[in-house]
């Protein structure tokens, strides 16, 4: 750890250590003591408005004092109590206020099941409202942006969303307008929240169901789904994510089976040295990237064939080529790359050249790069691939007699006409039928693996889908592809 000065104090009678400058809530968190909080967030400024993090501080002489723990600097010898009777009462009172005007929407609210307010209600209050008066009404279904829906009645004015846009995404797109219990979250009137590439993070950090994804609204109750850790392949930042999908135990038996396998939503998985707790909207829209039409069959000269037959054909082509060029996928996992290198080890650098291509380029309308997370290289494992092979300069050496295109990109238009091509990729494309042999490959969510991001950090992903039988895992394919012996030279002219 660093050389920061430490302070000794006590939480609930137990000794604890804080760094100089830390607040009670920060030090408590590291000590494993969870002080409830709505408005506090470790990555954002401290507004101290929800008041649920009130703690008790014992005095040597006199009565204890009470204040919010999120703005309370730790002092030496301080004796903090987080579970005293008074603190519990303060939390109950705060929960009474928080739920005073909050609509009982749980039955129709998408946040239900992962809602901090729900959890705290049961944990810290659990009693009916003391009010018999009507609740305030406000806008429901307010379109905060094309992507995000705002329900002002559910909002508890914690201002996490406002602070996020001012401090993290820098779009400064959200504001808290009006006063008192008429105050509302609203977008800046020049409506630039649509252009905030990080807008959907406010959905995660909203502690209630006030901010919801419009496209994911009412897709599935959160308890019907589970998440699998993954890495976003949208760019070389490699943000770690959770991909949510339906639990097997809750699978539909009579509806479209795709509902059981589709991506329900994507949320950030916190990795301090990569993306912190944030991801950009491209990650949110991963279903658009990963669930494109798949290549489901092997093809030989455009004709569907059983996969083993295509593999044999491809292996023969490779064995017979004098100077094959492999355009290595920058979407390949480290494990696939290692398998490739191992399988073709003998020929690499001698009769077989492998270079790394950029499978994807930035698309029009996409943010190319910024100072936050987004990187210009739209491929997740360029660095992993470049650790083994050099970059492709875009040209085909004149002596090349076979091109193997691994992954997307390497479009036929860029290759000399008449050159035989073996293509292997997960996705359907018109070029697939033009290839001499086409082999369908599995995609990221069908296997385990890892990518190395732009800074050299290795992040792992897990698969949660079973690939179709006709589809190949590259790791299994490569030994077969490399195993074929070159044809024995006969006297005949070729």
């Amino acid at each position, binding site marked *: 750890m660093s050389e920061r000065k430490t302070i000794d104090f006590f939480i609930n009678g137990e000794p604890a250590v804080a760094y100089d400058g830390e607040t009670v809530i920060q030090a408590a968190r590291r000590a494993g003591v969870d002080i409830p909080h709505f408005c506090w967030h470790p990555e954002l400024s401290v507004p101290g408005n929800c008041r649920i993090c009130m703690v008790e501080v014992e005095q040597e002489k006199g009565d204890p004092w009470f204040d919010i723990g999120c703005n309370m600097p730790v002092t030496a010898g301080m004796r903090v109590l987080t579970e005293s009777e008074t603190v519990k009462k303060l939390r109950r009172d705060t929960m009474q206020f928080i739920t*005073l005007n909050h609509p009982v929407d749980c039955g129709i609210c998408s946040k239900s099941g992962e809602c901090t307010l729900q959890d705290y209600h049961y944990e810290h209050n659990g009693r009916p409202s003391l009010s018999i008066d009507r609740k305030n009404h406000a806008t429901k279904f307010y379109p905060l942006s094309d992507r995000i829906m705002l329900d002002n009645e559910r909002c508890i004015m914690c201002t996490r969303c406002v602070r996020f846009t001012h401090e993290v995404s820098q779009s400064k797109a959200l504001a808290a307008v009006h006063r008192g219990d008429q105050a509302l979250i609203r977008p800046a009137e020049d409506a630039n929240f649509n252009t905030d590439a990080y807008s959907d993070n406010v959905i995660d950090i909203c502690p209630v169901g006030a901010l919801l994804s419009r496209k994911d609204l009412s897709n599935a109750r959160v308890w019907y789904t589970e998440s699998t850790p993954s890495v976003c392949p949208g760019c070389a930042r490699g943000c770690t994510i959770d991909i949510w999908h339906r639990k097997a135990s809750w699978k539909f038996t009579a509806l479209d089976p795709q509902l059981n396998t589709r991506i329900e939503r994507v949320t950030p998985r916190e990795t301090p040295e990569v993306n912190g707790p944030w991801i950009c909207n491209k990650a949110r829209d991963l279903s658009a990237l990963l669930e494109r039409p798949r290549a489901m069959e092997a093809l030989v000269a455009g004709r569907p064939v059983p996969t083993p037959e295509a593999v044999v054909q491809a292996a023969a082509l490779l064995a017979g080529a004098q100077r094959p060029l492999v355009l290595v996928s920058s979407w390949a996992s480290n494990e696939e790359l290692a398998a490739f290198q191992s399988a073709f080890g003998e020929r690499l650098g001698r009769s077989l050249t492998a270079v790394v291509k950029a499978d994807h380029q930035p698309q029009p309308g996409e943010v190319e790069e910024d100072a936050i997370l987004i990187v210009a290289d739209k491929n997740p494992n360029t660095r992993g691939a470049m650790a083994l092979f050099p970059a492709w300069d875009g040209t085909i050496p004149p002596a090349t007699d076979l091109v193997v295109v691994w992954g997307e990109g390497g479009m036929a238009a860029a290759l000399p006409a008449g050159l035989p091509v073996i293509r292997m990729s997960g996705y359907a494309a018109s070029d697939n039928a033009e290839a001499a042999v086409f082999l369908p490959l599995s995609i990221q969510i069908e296997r385990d693996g890892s990518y190395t991001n732009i800074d050299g950090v290795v992040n792992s992903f897990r698969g949660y889908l079973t690939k179709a039988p006709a589809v190949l895992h590259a790791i299994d394919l490569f030994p077969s592809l490399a195993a074929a012996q070159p044809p024995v030279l006969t006297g005949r002219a070729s």
Partner: protein
Amino acid sequence: MTLPAQVGTGRKFFMNFPVTADSHTLAAYRGRGGYQALAKVLSTGMAPTDVTKEVTASGILGHGGAAFPAGRKWGVVKLDDGEPHYVCMNADEGEPGTFKDRWLLEHVPHMCLEGLILASYALKGRHAFIYIRGEFDLPWRRMRDAIEEAYAAGLLGENIQGSGFSLDVVLYRGAGSYVCGEASAMLASLEGKKGWPRNRPPRLTVKGLYQRPTVVNNVETLANVPIIIAEGAEAFRKVGTAKSPGTQMISISGHIARPGVYEVEYGYSWERFLYEDCGGMQGGKALKCVIPGGVSTKILSAEELKGVTLDHNSALAAGSQVGSGGMIAIAEGTCMVRLARVIQRFYHHESCGQCTPCREGMGWMERVLDRIVRGQGRPEDIDRLYHISTANDGTTICSLGDSAGYAVTAILDHYREEFEYYIANGRSMHDGTLTVTDPFAESLARWHAAHPGALSPTLAAGAH
């Protein structure tokens, strides 16, 4: 400027000259000895710390309501930290019942300004601010003119009177918000933002305006500074009491016969002030209770006022505070339930909305009181009001929430039976009117005749 002899209700620092059409001008102020304090400091090369020492020695307590020792607040600022320091005059007088700062701004703007200049000198400030509420038109114009006169006379700007001390003053108008009278909200407003108060730490004297050390003082507090400097702390302390030195500008209104601004020497008998100097109650009625220092202070009944003197310790001992000096006299027969409803409407309207207990609690209290006043009260409503008030006590970012709680619970503590009656019977124990003498009685009666069943022209159909 010498301390005048006893006149009327004790010795006076401010109300000691006849108010005329130009008694507020620079020439008139100078004629009364104005700016001698500033000249004394600049010409004798008095050190900034010595100015603060004098103010501390005077024992003067802040006149904005919190009664914090002014010298102690100044003393916290580290003069040689290399940071800009700002002094801000809080002229956002919004506490209901209070209009004494208005008198000072309209009639002795130069005295307030001289105090601000002296404070800036003591705190090594290069810029000072006067935050004046947006509704104050005449006070704003008078202060604006005073500032221009001061610049023209070399009392502001670069190198004041050849001393090397320079000061620019910004006169900043508010735009309609009671909570901007809270110091941190005021500074947020001065930064051109909405007036949301801030949690402490850090204190404003460490990180205030634009995160720089800032001292916020009430108008009256600053207006006292020229006297303290010109005459010295000891002479100042000869006026008032040991713990409450000096005078208090009192604004009195309500059912009193002679409402207005009075300057009262601390230690003066409260009853004497009400019944003699202010002429007692309208229509010869008995006094029911008094709101001592703005609606954020707890009411004191006529009984509780017996023997109480106008000073901080005495008021505290009686269970209330001097507060902002905004005294409201309430006559026998006034419906305290309706009064509580008016007070709570105010707090609800002014809540900034930031923190949970106040944002939700103010509206809740208003709804409960509104229901009671409309004859739909329930027995548990009284406990609710106590609950909401207690839950706002010490749990909020600023004291708006606490104050609403104190105001309502003090009324409940004193006049619970009126609430119980209203709840049980669906109407006021008294006739429901809030006036003793109403110049518009006839119009009100006609309005009620035209709107049978309606409660009041000032209440919308149900609390908003």
